[in-house]
């Protein structure tokens, strides 16, 4: 299967950029806050990624559909309203149907509003591109965010709780690495993740002035 056949030339490029070359976390360092906070358990990471992907898609559809009639002076407000509404929906649904996950994620669900990936993509992409491309972009970026979160979460959950998706995977006598359960531990994992992916993707560090 070929990306180009599937999505066309432009679409393939959008997907590739989103998932790897212009990875929102490792290349643009966006969405770090939630990546640090919500990556302690795979379960939470899935919920968070799903939430972000949902809001991203919602925003992509609405903004790209309305891109020609949104007055440019109020576009940021429009993004905000859309994102905030989407997040509130996610929050309410989580609270009602997945209360335990909602509690574990605490204030970070409402804080999806401030997740720069969504705002950034809205301003950089959705408002300038047709719906189909925007959808692809939203999906790609959401997936990139998701797999990053998952990678970190898998590592952290195994080391910090000895489990994977709640199932014990470590041998008897395993001692939990408590630090990795705390956001401080996420810093080390995320830092190493950024280092590895940036080296692989060939991202140059910012030049010193």
């Amino acid at each position, binding site marked *: 299967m070929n990306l180009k056949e599937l999505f066309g030339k432009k679409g393939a490029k959008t997907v590739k950029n989103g998932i790897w070359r212009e990875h929102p976390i490792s290349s643009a360092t966006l969405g770090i806050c939630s990546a640090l906070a919500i990556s302690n358990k795979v379960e939470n990471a899935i919920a968070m990624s799903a939430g972000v992907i949902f809001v991203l898609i919602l925003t992509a559809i609405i903004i790209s559909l309305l891109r020609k009639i949104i007055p440019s002076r109020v576009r940021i407000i429009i993004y905000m309203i859309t994102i905030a509404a989407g997040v*509130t929906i996610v929050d309410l649904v989580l609270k*009602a149907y997945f209360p335990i996950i909602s509690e574990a994620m605490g204030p970070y669900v409402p804080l999806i509003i401030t997740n720069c990936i969504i705002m950034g993509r809205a301003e950089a992409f959705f408002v300038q591109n047709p719906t189909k491309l925007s959808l692809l972009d939203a999906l790609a970026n959401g997936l990139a965010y998701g797999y990053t979160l998952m990678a970190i979460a898998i590592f952290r959950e195994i080391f910090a709780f000895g489990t994977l998706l709640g199932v014990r995977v470590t041998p008897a006598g395993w001692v939990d690495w408590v630090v990795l359960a705390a956001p401080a531990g996420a810093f080390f994992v995320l830092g190493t993740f950024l280092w590895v992916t940036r080296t692989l993707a060939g991202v140059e560090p910012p030049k010193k002035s």
Partner: protein
Amino acid sequence: MIDKIKMIGFVLVFGIFWATALVAVDTMTGPRIEKYLLEKKRKKVLEALVIPYEKDSVEQVFTSNVKTEQIDGKEIFTAEDGSIAFEFAGPGSQGPMSGVIALSPGKDALKGIAIITQSETPGLGSRVLAADNLKNFRDKKVVPELAVVPAGTASAENEVDAITGATLTSNAIESLINKNVKATKTLIGQ
């Protein structure tokens, strides 16, 4: 001018649309959320009062076993055997802590403790607050005062063994219990 009106109009329409959508979602989810929160509190009260319950039968067990009354704005839960439970909140060793304390019918001993929120050091202080360890507090005298003593030295009726390496959390919960028990006893006039 027309631009401005258009702009304001667009934002208004857009906002109203989303407001409606949100109201709809809220009406759909609201009852479920409320029910969950209530159930959560009831579970903790039942835990503290050491009343067994099934996952699905919380509401039924609670309503049939526990009476709720308000004294000076504080909820006091009374079980059939006369033991009472009440919520508490206060400083732990690393951060705030809240939960439910239950007293025996004679109001001189602990019936049980359940923790709702806590922020003790994971793996260290939080071991004190684990359900298994909280069992050690059951039936301990709170008259004159509950005392947490170094591990392995508990002998008197009001003494609880501390956990090695978690003395500070043990001390924090000890003083929280003593303080709240005294306050509640004055409240209910005993």
